[in-house]
């Protein structure tokens, strides 16, 4: 059976209809639905209490830094466990690889300490 590209046109129509219906119902219901706006109603919900100031203020990055460092060294410990279990099988070669890995992380660790990244005051 020979089929041309034009035979697939109904599928395209079906697709357009399906997408069009969804898009139309979303937007038209939003346009037609009754709404009541007021200054008080459109405020952020703060349990009814008048909000003071703006939430978009800069705050200390220290907590984030500590959290990221924790994740980093946490992963390092995860890598240490299988190495410790297979310590004898991996031998000298494993030892060298692990030391390289740990030195890389330790350089980062000393860099943080030098930069006073862990000092809270």
């Amino acid at each position: 059976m020979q089929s041309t590209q034009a035979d697939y046109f109904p599928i395209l129509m079906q697709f357009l209809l399906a997408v069009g219906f969804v898009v139309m119902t979303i937007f038209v219901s939003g346009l037609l639905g009754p709404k009541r706006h007021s200054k008080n109603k459109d405020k952020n919900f703060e349990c009814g209490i008048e909000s003071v100031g703006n939430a978009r203020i800069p705050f200390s990055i220290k907590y984030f830094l500590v959290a990221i460092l924790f994740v980093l060294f946490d992963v390092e410990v995860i890598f240490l466990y299988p190495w410790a279990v297979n310590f004898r099988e991996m031998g000298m070669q494993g030892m060298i690889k692990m030391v390289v890995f740990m030195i890389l992380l330790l350089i980062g660790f000393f860099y943080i300490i030098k930069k006073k990244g862990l000092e809270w005051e």
Partner: protein
Amino acid sequence: MSDSKINIAEAPEGISGEGFFATKLSDVVGLARANSLWPLPFATSCCGIEFMATMASHYDVARFGSERMSFSPRQADMLLVMGTIAKKMAPILRQVYEQMAEPRWVISVGACACSGGIFDTYSVLQGIDKVIPVDVYVPGCPPRPEQILDGIMRLQDLVKSESVRRRSSPEYTELLASYNIK
């Protein structure tokens, strides 16, 4: 399920035939609204404890379509004010009411919310209808869960019979304006 005690909401009046059922839109909307009232509990004292019993398994307010407690006014239809509202609390209550999505209804539960109750003092609001319009008053100090359920059922009657145009009528705007709510 012959032995189940589940009641299905009754269909509104209408014309039914083979494969079709025709009725008024306002009836269907009312039916849907009345059986899915999402409560926003505003509990400040002992009536709130009674409401906790009402929404727990024994009295089970979920049987009336109020399954989900909403703690944001944006997705709530029914504000339940339970307890003494001090005058300092009044603007907060009003703000919560104002931020509810339309259509919204209010049940005032207990003597304090209805009229100030025994707290006839300078610091207590003498009834929440001083700051927001109230649809149903539930008396009692505190009311039993059955009474709260009765209040919800009375509100369901109101919701069922409410016209879909009521919220855009001049009377409603006037009512809100009398409370200084735009």
